[in-house]
C-alpha cells in the first residue's frame, strides 16, 4: 500500500474514532465515577430509598414493592429486569441455581417490561420455563419500574428490608449480587 492510501486509511479510522460514544470502548476507563448520593432521598442509585410501584404479577395479583420489602421475614428483595432474551434466560437460570438456594429469606421478582399484558407475560414465563420457580414475574406493561430504576435488559436491583437500594447494575456472573446479599443488614 502506498503512503497516500495509508494516510487515507488512518484518516478514516481517526474520524471514526472521534465519533459519538465509541471513545469509551476504544479507550476504556477503569476509574470509579459513581456519583455520591444524598442519603434519605428516593431514587434508583445505591444508598437511596427504592422508588415504590405497584404492578400485577402474571396470575393477576397486585404487588406493591414497599409492602413486599417490609413483609415480615423478608430480608431482601431482588428485581431482575427481563425481556426474555438469551442472556436474560442465562442470568435467571444461573440465579435460580447459584443464588436462590442460599438465600431463603430473599424474594426474587422478574420484571417483564416487554409484554403487553399480564396474560402475555404469563405466556412468556411459561414458554421460557419459569412458571412455578422462585421468580414471581411482574408485568411492567407501562414500563413504570423500568423507568424508576433506570433499568434495561439484565439490570439487577437489590433492596434491603429498610427499603434502601444495595445494588443496581447488570447481573453479570452474579458474584456481586451474592456478595451484596451476604452483606444485607
Amino acid at each position: 500500500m502506498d503512503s497516500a492510501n495509508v494516510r487515507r486509511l488512518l484518516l478514516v479510522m481517526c474520524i471514526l474514532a472521534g465519533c459519538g460514544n465509541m471513545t469509551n470502548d476504544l479507550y476504556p476507563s477503569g476509574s470509579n465515577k459513581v456519583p455520591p448520593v444524598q442519603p434519605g432521598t428516593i431514587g434508583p442509585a445505591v444508598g437511596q430509598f427504592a422508588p415504590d410501584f405497584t404492578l400485577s404479577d402474571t396470575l393477576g395479583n397486585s404487588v406493591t414493592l414497599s409492602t413486599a420489602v417490609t413483609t415480615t421475614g423478608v430480608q431482601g428483595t431482588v428485581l431482575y429486569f427481563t425481556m426474555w432474551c438469551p442472556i436474560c434466560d442465562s442470568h435467571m437460570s444461573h440465579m435460580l441455581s447459584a443464588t436462590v438456594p442460599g438465600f431463603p429469606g430473599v424474594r426474587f421478582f422478574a420484571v417483564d417490561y416487554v409484554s403487553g399484558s399480564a396474560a402475555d407475560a404469563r405466556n412468556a414465563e411459561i414458554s421460557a420455563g419459569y412458571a412455578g420457580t422462585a421468580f414471581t414475574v411482574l408485568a411492567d406493561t407501562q414500563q413504570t419500574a423500568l423507568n424508576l430504576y433506570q433499568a434495561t435488559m439484565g439490570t439487577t436491583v437489590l433492596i434491603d428490608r429498610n427499603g434502601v437500594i444495595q445494588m443496581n447494575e447488570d447481573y453479570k456472573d452474579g458474584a456481586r449480587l451474592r456478595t451484596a446479599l451476604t452483606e444485607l443488614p
Partner: protein
Amino acid sequence: MNEHSLSFWLCAALLVGAALFTPLTAFAGSCCGGGGGVNLVLPKFYESMIDLSVDIEQYNGLWNNDGKYIDQPGYHLWQYRMNVGYAQRLTSRWQASVTVPYVWNYNGYPNKTSRSDGIGDMTLSFWYEAREDRSAWKIRSPGDLIPAVTIGPSLIIPTGISPYDGVSDSTDVTGRGFYRLDGNILLDKTIHPWSATLAMSYGTYLERPVNQEYSKFVEPYHKKLGDRTSASLSLSYIYYLGSGGDTLTGTASCSYLNEENGTIDGRQDATSGFRKETVGGAIAYSSTDHDWSFRVSWSHAVRHDGWGDNFPTTDIYTLGVRYGFR
C-alpha cells in the same frame, strides 16, 4: 492452464470464501445487538477491491442455556447492516483490508418499540497467500489435491455502540465493546467446476476495564469475553452463462460458531458463552472480466433444539456487490 484461467478460479473460490465469512463474524439479532465486520479477501492478480453489502438479520426466537429452542411470537426484531469494505494488496502475497458496518436496529416487542442506528465494530485484516491452488482443472498427482492456503490475523476494533458506552437501552447497541484478535485460515480447492472451501478462525478478546453499564456508572471491574472458534465448510458449483465468460456460482455451506465463557475480574462468567450452528446458501454472479461480482446469500439458523445455546435464532439475508481493480 494459463495464468488467467488460474486467476479466474481463484477469484471464484475466494469470492465464495469471502461470502461465507459474513455469517461467521456477524453477531446476533437486534435484541442482543452488534454489527461485526466482514473479512474481505482480495483475489489473485487484483491490486485493490471495494465491497459493499447489506445484511438483513431477522430474529426468530432463541436457544436457551440448555440448547432448547424457544419461539417468541410477537417479537419483531430486525437488524440491518451496510458493510463497506476495502482491500489493498501490499505485496505479491500480502494484503490488507478494512470493513466498517453501519447498523440499524428495529425492535418491536408487544409493549415496546425502538429504533436506533450507528457504526458497528470495524474489522482490520491482513492476509498472506501461503500456497496457491496449482491445479484447478485436472488432478495428475496426489499433490494436486493440496488446496490453496490463505492465512492471516484480523482485529475487531470496538467502534460500535456497546453497553459500556453512553447508551441507556440494551436494544440500541451496535457493537460489543471489546477488541478481538483473530487468527484465520482459508483452505480452498477447486476442481473444475467444483470448489470446496474451509474457513476457520480462532479469536481472543482483550480484557478491558468497565466503569459504566448502559450509561450508569458502576464500581469498576475488569471483563473479558470468551475465546471464539468458528468454522465454515462450503461446496460450490461454477456454471458458465452462455458462450461468454459470465459465471454463476452456487454454494451450499454449514457453519459453526462457539464462544467460551468470559471472565469478570478473572472469575469465569458461566452465563456468557454461546454456540450457534447454521446452514446457508449463496449465489454469486461474476462478469466476464471478473472485475464485477454480485452475490445473494442466506444464512439460516435451524429452529430446533440442539442447534445452538444461549443465542438468538436468526436468518441473515445478504446482498453484495464488489469491484476489483487490477
